């Protein structure tokens, strides 16, 4: 599950992470930021991959009253949703 490393991509990711944490008023050491780079890039890549195959029609999954979602009569018992 590891992703290809690129020095420039790491630098860019580090800058993005630093900016996001600064924006949030969060105090984090440089070493801790460096440790976040690989995971951050992994997530960015996976999120982009799934975004590219998301049809426009897909809406965020609802999270309330899951019984109504799971058990709608037209879907029957085998529907999987949230």
């Amino acid at each position, binding site marked *: *599950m*590891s992703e290809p490393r690129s020095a420039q991509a790491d630098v860019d990711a580090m800058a*993005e*992470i630093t900016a*996001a*944490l600064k924006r*949030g*008023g*969060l*105090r*984090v050491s440089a070493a*801790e930021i460096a*440790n*976040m780079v*690989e*995971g*951050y890039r*992994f*997530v*960015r*890549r*996976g*999120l982009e*991959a*799934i*975004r590219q*195959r*998301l*049809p426009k029609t*897909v*809406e*965020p*999954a609802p*999270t*309330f*009253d*899951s*019984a*109504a979602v*799971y*058990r709608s009569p037209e879907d029957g*018992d*085998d*529907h*999987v*949703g*949230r």
Partner: protein
Amino acid sequence: MEMTMSAADELCYLSIAELERAYADRRLSPVEVTEAYLDRIEALDGRLNSYITVTAEAARAAARSSEQRRASGRPLGPLDGVPVALKDLYDTAGIRTTAHSPLYAERVPETDATVVRRLNSAGVILLGKLAMHEFASGGPELDAIFPPARNPWDTDRVPAGSSSGSGAALAAGLAAGSFGSDTGGSIRGPASYCGIVGLKPTYGLVSRSGVIPMSWTLDHAGPMARTVKDTAMLLQAVAGHDPADPASALAEVPDFRVHLAEGIAGRRVGAPLAAVEAAGDLHPETLAAFRQALSSLEQLGASIQSIELPDHVQAAAVWLVIASAEAFAFHERDAREQPEKFGRRFFASMLQGALYSASDYIQALRGRALICQEMGNVMRLVDLIVLPTTPHPAMDFATELASPFFKRTSFTRLFSLTGQPAISLPCGFSADRLPIGLQIAGRPFKDHTVLAAAHAYEQANDWYRQRPPIT
């Protein structure tokens, strides 16, 4: 009643179902069973660190009350007098609930979580509160405010997390049952590493009200025990709608114990063998145990077929964005104002949530919806899905601490995203005598089908009878 240490130890390994019968027949009393557990915790937990708080006096008082109810023929139900312990994120009125964090080290809730209230109504005896990964995330920390729980099968190894204390305590005979929480595998992982049973119920079946959250839309509360039947009994006591949990379902609650007899014969079981074999960190003994389990399920009458699951790397990214963004939303103020009150491992994990935009979060929610659709297509072909719970047996602490979370294969996260029920139960041991777990997932609100399949497998194999070498 005086008894030898070995007899007391045997008593602590009785199943909940066996305890129920022994209480009903007056062969045992809740007081002597509770005393045996408290003695064993005192003797062994110094090496395991599974408990953060032992509520000995309250447990003794509850045991005396239970004994009176039993003696007068008016037990509150099958769990009356059964000693359990809870992951330390279930709010317990008057008992500190720490989430294993310095931030909450002195936090004492005024009210019980819904699960706790229902367990109290069922007459269970609370032995105490159990170790976990800080705020159910981040992994073990050797220098945490409370020491990390250790695996009874090998104390140099982790019990997995985040319900680490639950897995360790059950395997070591330090509780008869437990409740953990599972956001990406935190019940099933410890069940696998510790050789016990853990169920992540369908999202919405068990209330999370009063359970300190990690990620609201992914958190599941669920039972852990040493047998599938015990797990079903614990689930029965707490399942059902709770208006205090906005995600709680209005679903009917079946009699889980009655359904156990349905077995697995005639069920269509999907096995994603190609995905399992492709996992880079798959241990050969885990694969061998899984293949053996498939044969056993086939002998029990299941029809095994090959399936493909949604892409697990994309699922991992979706899960990480949702989980970390929601965790950060919960902790944001404390993260800004008193960052020193968090363990560094959890802090770094939670801060990932500060890195994603609102659009990223929405795209992740849409990604989850797509994954649910894809899983729905799979579940139209099969009744159940089976795969290893974890790609390998328990790791030692050094390996665990050096291994970034996102790099590991997860066979559990998909079912956290879809919300469908999934159980882990023992299916073998490595050459090092470490447990290996089998995961069985089913359709939403078919928790009883999952439990029935797991019970059939469990009874046909005797892995669940194995005990760790800790005395």
